[in-house]
C-alpha cells in the first residue's frame, strides 16, 4: 500500500515546523534574495494525455488502422518535421501557436517518455511521476527534495502551487509550499475595520505561530496559516499585474497570467505548479469533430501557453523561464468503442522556454500490431524509450543548478539535451 499524505505528516511534520520562523524574518530573506533568476513552471495535464493525438505520426498506416475514428488525417496535422528515425510528425491541428514556438526553436517535444512497467492507475501513476520513484512512490516529491536541500529557513513563497492542494511533486519535508489559486482571494478579511482589523491580524498571526511538537497535526495546520501570513503582502503585489497580452479567460489561462505576474513582480518564487485537466479521454475524444473534447483541451493548452510565451517575451523574461509538461501516463494505441482510448503506458513531454533547444527528441513507436519491441502489453501500449527521470535530471542539473543524482537517487544524466 502506498503511504499517503497522512503518514507523511505523521513522520515528517516535526522537521517541517522548523522551517517556519517569524514571518517578518522570512520576508526579509525574500527581499535579500531579490528577484529570482530562473523559474521552473511545472505543467501537469491530468488524466493521462493521449500523446498520439498531441504529436501525430501522420504517415504511419498502423496509426490509421488502429484508430479508424480518432486518427487525425495527414492533411490536418501541423507538420513539424521528422524524428531521428525518419518518422514524420505533426502537432494536433489546434496547436498552431505551439508550432510557432516550435519554429522559433523554443519548444522541445520528447516522445515516448515513461518508465518500465508503467502503472495504469491515475493515482499511482501520478505518484510515480511526482516522486520520480517507480518502486516506492511515497512521501516527498522530486521537487520537494530539491526544496529540502535549500539552506534553511526557506521562504514560504519559494514554490507556488496554483491549485488548492500541494501536489506531491512539491511536497517537501521541511519546506512549506504556498497554494494560491487566485491572487484576488489571497487576502486577510476581518469583520471589523481599522485598528481592530489590525489587532485581529496580529492575534491571528500569533495563534498560527503555535506549533506544538507533541501535536504534529495542529502544527501542520498552523504552519499553513503561518505561510499565508508570511506571503500575503507580496502576493498582493501580483493582483495589480497588467499583462502585455490578453490571456484566455479560462482557468488555465488565468493561472498562467498569475504566474507571469509573479515572475514579473519578482516575488521570490522559483517553482510554479500549474495544471489543467480533462485528459482522461475514455470516451468522446472526438479528435475529428469540431467541438470534440480533445480539440477543446488542445485549444486551451495552445491559447494559454502562447499568451504566456508572448507575455514573458515582451517582458524580457522568457530566457528566465522553463515550462516542463508531463502527464501520468499515455493511452492505449487502439481506440475503444466509445471514440476514446483507455489507460496506457508511455506518453510524451514538452519543454518550452527561452533556454530550450527546441526540436523533436526521441523516436516514435512502430504501431504495428505484430510483436515489436517498441510496444508492450501485447502490443497495445507504447513502450517508453526515454526514462522520465532523465528529463527531470536535465532540468535539475542544467536549469536549477542542482544535483540530479542526489535528488533522484541515481544517475539519470544520459537524457535528451533539450537545455
Amino acid at each position, binding site marked *: *500500500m*502506498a503511504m*499517503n*499524505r*497522512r503518514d507523511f*505528516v*505523521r513522520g515528517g511534520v516535526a522537521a517541517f515546523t522548523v522551517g517556519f520562523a517569524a514571518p517578518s524574518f522570512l520576508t526579509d530573506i525574500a527581499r535579500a534574495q531579490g528577484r529570482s533568476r530562473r523559474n521552473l513552471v511545472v505543467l501537469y495535464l*491530468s*488524466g493521462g494525455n493521449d500523446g498520439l493525438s498531441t504529436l501525430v505520426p501522420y504517415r504511419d498506416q498502423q496509426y490509421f488502422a488502429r484508430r479508424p475514428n480518432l486518427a487525425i488525417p495527414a492533411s490536418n496535422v501541423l507538420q513539424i518535421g521528422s524524428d531521428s528515425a525518419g518518422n514524420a510528425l505533426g502537432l494536433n491541428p489546434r496547436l498552431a501557436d505551439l508550432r510557432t514556438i516550435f519554429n522559433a526553436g523554443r519548444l522541445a517535444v520528447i516522445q515516448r517518455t515513461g518508465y518500465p512497467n508503467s502503472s*495504469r*492507475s*491515475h*493515482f*499511482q501513476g501520478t505518484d510515480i511521476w511526482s516522486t520520480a520513484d517507480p518502486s516506492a512512490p511515497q512521501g516527498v516529491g522530486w521537487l520537494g527534495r530539491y526544496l529540502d536541500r535549500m539552506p534553511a529557513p526557506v521562504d*514560504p513563497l519559494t514554490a507556488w*502551487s496554483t491549485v*488548492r*492542494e*500541494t501536489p506531491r511533486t512539491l511536497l517537501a519535508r521541511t519546506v512549506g509550499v504556498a*497554494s494560491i*489559486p487566485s491572487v484576488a*482571494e489571497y*487576502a*486577510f*478579511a*476581518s*469583520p*471589523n475595520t481599522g*485598528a*481592530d482589523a489590525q*489587532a*485581529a491580524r*496580529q*492575534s*491571528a498571526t*500569533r*495563534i498560527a*505561530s*503555535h506549533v506544538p511538537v507533541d501535536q504534529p*497535526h*495542529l502544527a*501542520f*495546520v*498552523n504552519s*499553513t*496559516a503561518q505561510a*499565508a501570513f508570511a506571503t*500575503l503582502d507580496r502576493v498582493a503585489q501580483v493582483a495589480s499585474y497588467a499583462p502585455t497580452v490578453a490571456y484566455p479567460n479560462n482557468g488555465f489561462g488565468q493561472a498562467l497570467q498569475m504566474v507571469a505576474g509573479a515572475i514579473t513582480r519578482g516575488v521570490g518564487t522559483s517553482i510554479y505548479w500549474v495544471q489543467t*485537466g480533462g485528459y482522461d479521454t*475514455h*470516451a468522446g475524444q472526438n479528435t475529428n469533430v469540431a467541438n470534440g*473534447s480533445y480539440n477543446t483541451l488542445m485549444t486551451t493548452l495552445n491559447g494559454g501557453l502562447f499568451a504566456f510565451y508572448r507575455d514573458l517575451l515582451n517582458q524580457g523574461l522568457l530566457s528566465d523561464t522553463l515550462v516542463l509538461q508531463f502527464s501520468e501516463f499515455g493511452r492505449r494505441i487502439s*481506440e*475503444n*468503442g*466509445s471514440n*476514446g482510448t*483507455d*489507460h496506457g503506458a508511455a506518453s510524451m513531454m514538452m519543454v518550452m522556454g527561452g533556454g530550450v533547444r527546441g526540436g523533436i527528441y526521441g523516436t516514435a513507436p512502430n504501431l504495428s500490431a505484430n510483436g515489436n519491441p517498441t510496444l508492450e*502489453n501485447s502490443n497495445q501500449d507504447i513502450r517508453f524509450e526515454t526514462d522520465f527521470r532523465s528529463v527531470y535530471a536535465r532540468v535539475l542539473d542544467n536549469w536549477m543548478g542542482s544535483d540530479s543524482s542526489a535528488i533522484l537517487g541515481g544517475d539519470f544524466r544520459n537524457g535528451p539535451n533539450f537545455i
Partner: protein
Amino acid sequence: MRFGREQEIDHLYRRAGFGASQEEVEAYTSLSFASYAASVARLLNYSEIPDDVDSFIGRPGYVGVTGRSGSGFQPANNILDARQRWLFRMVHTKRPLQEKMALFWHNHFATAYSKINGEIGDGGFATRMLAAKPDEEASRTKGQIELFREHALGNFRTLLIEVAKDPAMLVWLDGRTNVRARPQENFARELMELFTLGVGRFEETDVYAGARVFTGWNLSLANRNTAQARYEFFYNTAQHDTTAKEFSFPIYADGRRTIPARSAGEGIQDGIDLIDAVARHPDTGPRLARKLYAYFLNEVDAPDESFIDALARTYYSSGYEIAPMVRMLLLSPQFKDPSSYYKRYSWPVEFVVRSLKEVGWNGFSVNSALSPLINMGQQLFEPPDVNGWELGPGWFSSGGMLARMNFAALLATNQRFNLRDQSRGNVDSPESLVSYMLDRLTPPEFAGDAYSALLDYARAGGAWTGSDTQLAAKSSGLAHLIAGSGDYQLV
C-alpha cells in the same frame, strides 16, 4: 470550556454529524437521552425520525437559501441549488449520521457534475441524476445522492450493485459505452482499485476481464423529448460479451476464478457475480474499515490493527453491513477516549456547517458559502476525480487555510448583531467574552500564547465598556479568530 457530558456529546456530534448547535447540545444532554449509548442508538436508528428537513427550507429560524432570479430555488434542476439544499440538510437534519454517511459515500464513489453535464448536455439531466428526489419532479429521477442516503448505513454489496446501475455512474465512468466489440475499462478498473480492493491488489488482466463482465450495462433514455425524460439503466443483451471471464482472484466462494460463459439473456449475472466477489474479497473489509476509522475516529494516529481486524470481521460476519461497523466505532473505548478528540482534519463542508451551527445562521444564506467552499477545495457534487478529495492534511495549504479564515470572517460579519445580542448579559469583561466564545465554538483548548492572543485582541482598542458597539465588534472579531484558527479546523 465545556466538561464531561457536554464535551462527550460535542465530540460525538462533530464526528457522527456536523457539530451541535446550542439548542441541540441542551436537548442531547437532557434527561431524554440520558446515556451515551442512547445517543449513539438515536444517531444510528435514524429511520425512526421523520425525514422532513427539506420542508423547513425557506422558513424563518433556519439558514437561508437563495433562488435564481426568474427560476427560483430549484434543487432538482440547478446544481447550485442542489449544493445549497445539501448544505441546508447538513445544518438542520435530525438525522445527522445519515447525511454524514451520504457524504462519505459521495467521496467513496466520487462522481462529478461537470463531466455528466458535459456528456449529456443541458436540460437539467445532470443535476437530476445527482441530486433529485424521485417525488419532486416530473421525470421521477432518483439522484445518486438519494441512493447514498437510502443505503447510508445499509449493505455494501447492495450499494455496489445499485452504484453499478446508477445512471450518473454509468456516464461518469463511461459504462454506458461499454459494448461487446470494444469493452470499456473505466468502471471495472475503479470498481476494484477505488471502490473495493485497493490499488495493487489485482492484475491488469482482471481489468480487461472486468470490462467484459459489464459489457451491455448501458443507459437508455425513457420518455425522450417530454418533461418525463429520464435516463435509466438498461442491460443490453445484444452488447454483452457471453464468453467466460477469468480472474486472478476467486470469484466464487468455492474458489473458482472463472465466470462461466452465459447466454446474453442471463449475462447480467456476470456483473452480480463480480460484485459478490469484490465485496467478499479479503482486502475490501479492511480497506473499508480503515476508511471508516479515519472518517469517524482518528486520522492522525496509526490505528490499532486489532481494532481494524475486528471491524473487518464485523463487515464479513454481518454479510457486508455498514451499520454494525459504525456502531462498533462509535461505541468503542477508543472513540470515547479524550485522546481521540480533535484527531480529524475537518473537510471544508464539515467546517462550514459546524461554523454555522456554532456561530449562528439567522440571516445567512448557504448560497454565500458556495464560492468560499470552492476556495477551500470542496465543491459538493464536484470531486476533483474518481479518487475523491485529498483528505486529511491534503485539505490544508496556505490558500486553503486562508479561505477558511476568510469564511470565518464572512460568517462572523454576517452574525455580528446576533452575537452581540446573545453575548449581552452573559459577559462583563474581555476575559468572560473570550470564555463565552470559546465555550460556544468548542475548539480544543486554547493554551499559552494562543489564549493570550485572543485576550489581547479582546482588550485592544480601549477599556471595556460592554457597550453594544463594543460587544458587536469583539464578539464577531473573536468568532472570526476562533473559527479561523488552526485549532478549530480539527474535529
